[in-house]
């Protein structure tokens, strides 16, 4: 990167600077002995040319739209198009969520993102005993395609892209989306969106669980195959680090485990479905966390793009540039927010969103200040959305592409994160892959260690959270508290029992039998799921088939 002359000059000047620092510190010590990121990565007082001397400009940095895509996938950066403003929303009934969606679209949001309630996420209907007390609490309750159609009422499926955070029942909710499009006369080749559909991180972190890892990956490969053939505009997996980070992982762990999960899916689809990597890899998408440590997050996102590009090209011999692109959504870190002094959360979210943008995200959710306490209020959501709009249209950070490139610190930190991530990836390779690593509890224990270490650092005031362990006050800040009352559950139960009376139950049984037989034969379940939801089979009825054929997975409670 630098001529020997420059490095020699830097060396001389550096030693002069070091002498100066030593003198000052001898008189007055630094405020604290160690300076680290939120993930405990040690940071130096200063970075200089020597920290990135071994970088090869063409190989390691390059240009936007060119391998290894460190500086972004798109040659035009944000000038051609800002990231998608995509706020995660779902609450109570389908009608209520549909109302919130229209409110967000009218406020300038450019894509939709669905939060389902826990019964839906776990593949239970509202009338399951396991669902008692949970209906509509953390998201929208969907039992059947009737609910789904209320959810998407007056949403143009051929122009708005919709993301659905759904994992074990991903095949079913996607089937509802596909079936709804078909019933509106919109071809499957015209719809755009994303299903999260990433089970590996569920075992590692988020814990919406249904079947064991192996058959879970099989169902995911079914969706990838179906999407490749019939729904080319759909992102069939959103390989997610967000929840891994929220569970307590460090930035490096988030990066490494997420990318290794991605590699596991690639390998399974190639092996199980016989597809060529370039037939499906362009539709794989990613989802990262934007935590509070500003530069660490920017470095992480830049490193993620470079690692994926290298992995696709070198590990999987991909020939298509579109497979090398890591396209990702980002969400600001829920776990960085505090219930204490909740208005401070606006500031945290703004800083995190800025890091996501400087890291080159293509889609963003900004948390609302009250999300640490309850579902977001309309007012709080508006501030969160406006935060993105201010970053995009007022601050000037979108004027130029990847403005931090070439920074001694950012490039050095990006390299360091990449190296540390590869170390983890190779370690997991040696264990026999991610499914094997999960079965032996490896990523779970690594995250558990990091989460415990962090909490002890907070308790010891070695790491600071304002309002939690520093600048605390006894003042109680009253903020409006959104609550889902029990009438939502009652009404949803009535709707479900009414549907079960009205539908052709013989037809439902036939559809479920077809799904069962597809599972047993190892066929792709997607066409059967679409047929089943059109005939009003419910989420749980189909998931019960999966549970019956593949077995049920229980959280082993590793800590």
């Amino acid at each position, binding site marked *: 990167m630098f001529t020997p002359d420059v490095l020699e000059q830097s060396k001389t000047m550096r030693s002069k600077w070091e002498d100066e620092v030593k003198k000052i510190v001898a008189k007055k010590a630094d405020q604290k002995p160690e300076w680290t990121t939120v993930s405990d990565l040690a940071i130096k007082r200063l970075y200089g040319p020597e920290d990135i001397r071994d970088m090869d400009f063409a190989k390691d940095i390059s240009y936007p739209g060119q391998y290894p895509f460190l500086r972004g996938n798109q040659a035009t950066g944000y000038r051609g198009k800002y990231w998608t403003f995509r706020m995660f929303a779902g609450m109570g009934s389908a009608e209520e969520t549909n109302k919130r969606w229209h409110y967000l679209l009218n406020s300038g949001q450019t894509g939709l993102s669905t939060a389902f309630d826990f019964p839906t996420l776990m593949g239970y209907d509202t009338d399951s005993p396991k669902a008692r007390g949970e209906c509509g609490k953390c998201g929208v309750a969907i039992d059947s395609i009737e609910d789904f159609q209320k959810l998407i009422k007056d949403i143009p499926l051929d122009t708005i892209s919709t993301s659905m955070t759904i994992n074990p029942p991903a095949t079913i909710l996607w089937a509802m989306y596909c079936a709804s499009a078909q019933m509106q006369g919109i071809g499957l080749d015209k719809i755009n969106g994303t299903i999260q559909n990433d089970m590996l991180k569920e075992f590692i972190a988020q*814990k919406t*669980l249904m079947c064991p890892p192996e058959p879970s990956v099989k169902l995911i490969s079914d969706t990838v195959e179906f999407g490749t053939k019939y729904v080319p505009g759909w992102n069939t997996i959103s390989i997610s680090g967000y929840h891994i980070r929220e569970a*307590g992982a460090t930035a490096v762990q988030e990066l490494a485990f997420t990318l290794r999960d991605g590699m596991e899916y690639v390998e399974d689809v190639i092996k199980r479905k016989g597809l060529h990597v370039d037939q499906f890899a362009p539709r794989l998408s990613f989802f990262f966390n934007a935590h509070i440590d500003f530069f660490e997050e920017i470095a992480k996102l830049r490193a993620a793009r470079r690692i994926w590009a290298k992995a696709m090209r070198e590990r999987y011999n991909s020939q298509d540039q579109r497979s090398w692109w890591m396209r990702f959504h980002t969400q600001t870190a829920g776990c960085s927010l505090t219930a204490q002094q909740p208005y401070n959360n606006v500031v945290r979210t703004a800083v995190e969103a800025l890091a996501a943008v400087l890291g080159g995200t293509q889609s963003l959710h900004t948390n609302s200040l009250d999300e640490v306490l309850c579902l977001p209020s309309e007012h709080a959501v508006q501030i969160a959305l406006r935060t993105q709009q201010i970053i995009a249209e007022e601050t000037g950070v979108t004027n130029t592409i990847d403005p931090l490139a070439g920074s001694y610190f950012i490039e050095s930190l990006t390299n360091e994160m990449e190296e540390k991530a590869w170390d983890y990836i190779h370690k997991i390779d040696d264990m026999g892959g991610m499914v094997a690593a999960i079965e032996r509890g490896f990523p779970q224990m690594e995250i558990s260690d990091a989460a*415990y270490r962090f909490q002890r650092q907070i308790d010891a005031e070695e790491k600071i959270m304002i309002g939690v362990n520093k600048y605390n006050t006894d003042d109680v800040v009253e903020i409006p508290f959104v609550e889902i009352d029990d009438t939502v559950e009652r009404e949803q139960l009535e709707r479900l029992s009414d549907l079960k009376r009205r539908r052709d139950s013989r037809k439902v049984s036939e559809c479920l039998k077809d799904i069962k037989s597809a599972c047993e034969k190892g066929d792709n379940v997607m066409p059967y799921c679409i047929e089943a939801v059109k005939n009003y089979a419910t989420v749980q009825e189909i998931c019960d088939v999966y549970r019956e054929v593949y077995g049920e997975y229980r959280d082993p409670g590793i*800590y």
Partner: protein
Amino acid sequence: MSNRKIRILLAKPGLDGHDRGAKVLARAFRDAGFEVIYTGCHQTPEQIVGAALQEDVDMVGLSCLSGAHTYLYPRVAELLREQGADDITVVGGGIIPDKDFQPLYDAGLKALFTPGATLESICTWIQENIKPRD
């Protein structure tokens, strides 16, 4: 028997999978010298009470962040009473709005730990309030 360690069942009732807090507490309890049984996510109140009786614990700690604590926490306390095991102390944690405190205490919960509670303060509460049962 007086040397018996305090035995704690940590449990996550309901469908919520946010287990970071429960797992961090499990480690803190172990390091504080308690015996800990953590049963993982997605336990029904019936499963939790069954485990509490089988493991002969002194305290059940519940963690739920989905908002379903208003139903699930009282249900655990109620089932323990039905089993004649109301000498097992039940405590809870999570995002619990102020207005839910009194109904939960009335339902039999002895303590509620909310954001800002340190590991040390929770362990101290246990040492001061839980005696190993004979």
